[in-house]
């Protein structure tokens, strides 16, 4: 039998790495499967200036540690390794949510007890003529990777969200001029006001409004773009050395098939504990349906998911092994120490069950620590007594129904 991990994390971006830190620190056997280098998209952003406590390298702010995107992601990785998380390089091609297995491109099957999906997102392409052929020839989706090439050259940036405007500002450290192609009316950008202000003040940045890219042209390397004014449909050709495209991202979730529920755009649906539609399968970071996609939100998702996975393991597996797999009848007593009524009734309930001796098992569960199980079996008040036999609930006694006689009758029926 192959190794069984407590948590298998698919993807090593900030969400997956944070889950690995929390998981391994909780002494859970934690495996991170990453197809390339850890860090995800965060490792492709050089200027990282909104992760709390850190500041972008070279900005010279006092009292804050300077950091870059790749640097912060290396620190996340080392941190997870420090607590004992294991890393393996493989590309995940499918998962089995029920069996908690994950299959890699090379055919390796990883066995887990819970799964945290952190597949992230990749830049969306424009889908225009010339874009594909000229990728790496002046068409880029990663300013950090390629900015060096464009020192003293003229480039354009397509898009107007946070990433587009932030990277346009970064690119002016290298390029002679940066022209941002914006689909909206003059003065309207989707980026945060602080980023907009910085771009408007930057003497190297120009804007072309109401426009999209129709075609990217060049013989071997980018030479020009054809711009289309969406109000007039007028086409104009503009010379440029490079085209940086920031028009959103698409989640990398196609490998999931129908194992977990996705929204119409392919993002993974979760509850506020990061659990997907499949029990014990969690999702974090940019591939999740979430209002904000940042390093800090991915990291927070990872912490929540790892703790939820730990609770899932304790609660679900504990319940399964102790109650569902038991051959004798089991009296499961949901209670809470905060309820005076529970405390008062406890001796009577215990005595009624224990009167059957070894032929019946008594299992007490704190309702607040076992909300998943409580909810599934319809436990709404404390105390509630459930009688299980052969993995099935055969009787539920609500607080008003619990008496020594009703307990004796419920268990007695099973034993006869």
């Amino acid at each position: 039998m192959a190794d069984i991990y407590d948590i298998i994390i698919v993807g090593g971006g900030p969400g997956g790495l944070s889950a690995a830190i929390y998981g391994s620190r909780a002494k859970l056997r934690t495996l991170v499967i990453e197809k390339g280098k850890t860090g995800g998209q965060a490792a492709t952003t050089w200027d990282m200036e909104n992760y709390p406590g850190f500041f972008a390298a070279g900005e010279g702010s006092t009292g804050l540690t300077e950091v870059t995107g790749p640097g912060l992601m290396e620190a996340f990785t080392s941190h997870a390794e420090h607590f004992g998380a294991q890393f393996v390089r493989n590309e995940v091609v499918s998962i089995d949510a029920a069996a908690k297995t994950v299959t890699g491109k090379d055919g390796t099957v990883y066995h887990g007890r819970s799964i945290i999906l952190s597949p992230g997102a990749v830049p969306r392409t424009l889908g225009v003529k010339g874009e594909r052929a000229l990728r790496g020839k002046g068409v880029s989706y990663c300013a950090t990777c390629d900015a060096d090439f464009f020192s003293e050259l003229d480039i354009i940036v397509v898009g107007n969200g946070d990433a587009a405007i932030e990277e346009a500002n970064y690119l002016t450290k290298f390029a002679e001029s940066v022209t941002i192609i914006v689909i909206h009316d003059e003065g309207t950008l989707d980026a945060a006001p602080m980023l907009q202000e910085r771009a408007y003040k930057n003497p190297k940045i120009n804007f072309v409004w109401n426009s999209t890219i129709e075609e990217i042209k060049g013989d071997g390397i980018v030479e020009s773009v054809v711009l289309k004014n969406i109000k007039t449909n007028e086409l104009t050709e503009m010379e440029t050395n490079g085209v940086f495209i920031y028009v959103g991202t698409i989640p990398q979730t196609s490998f999931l098939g129908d194992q977990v529920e996705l929204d119409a755009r392919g993002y993974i649906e979760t509850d506020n504990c990061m659990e997907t539609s499949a029990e014990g399968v969690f999702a974090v970071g940019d591939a999740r349906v979430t209002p904000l996609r940042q390093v800090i939100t991915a990291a927070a998702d990872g912490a929540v998911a790892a703790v939820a996975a730990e609770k899932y393991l304790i609660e679900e597996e504990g319940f399964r092994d102790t109650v569902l797999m038991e051959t004798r009848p089991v009296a499961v007593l949901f209670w809470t120490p905060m309820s005076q009524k529970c405390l008062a009734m406890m001796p009577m309930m215990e005595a009624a069950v224990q009167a059957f001796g070894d032929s019946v098992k008594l299992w007490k569960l704190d309702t607040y620590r076992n909300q998943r199980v409580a909810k599934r079996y319809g436990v709404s008040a404390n105390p509630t007594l459930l009688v299980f036999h052969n993995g099935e609930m055969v009787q539920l006694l609500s607080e008003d129904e619990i008496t020594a006689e009703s307990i004796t009758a419920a268990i007695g029926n099973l034993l006869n």
Partner: protein
Amino acid sequence: MLEVHKDNFEAEVLQAEGLVVVDYWGPKCEKCLALIPDYERLAAAYGDKAKFCKLDTSGNRRLAISQKVLGLPVFAFYRGGEKIAELGPSEASAESIEAKLKELI
């Protein structure tokens, strides 16, 4: 592995006999860094059939642009002073490099 740069590119790549592979990389390119172990493994496996080189584009920008490399990573294959094939940022992977090597050797 042989590091090529603006001063030895002509001699080591363009004037070289047989198949030459050049890994255009940069220290800020995470995908480049991730592929280096694979490239080194392939260099060890196919070292007798092709010459494997690395080119750090951060100090050789003009050279890279002269070879029409404007984005990373790029794995370029040369023979007889001509670039005969290339795998750019969207195609480069351990599998695609090995497949291209097998095709060209």
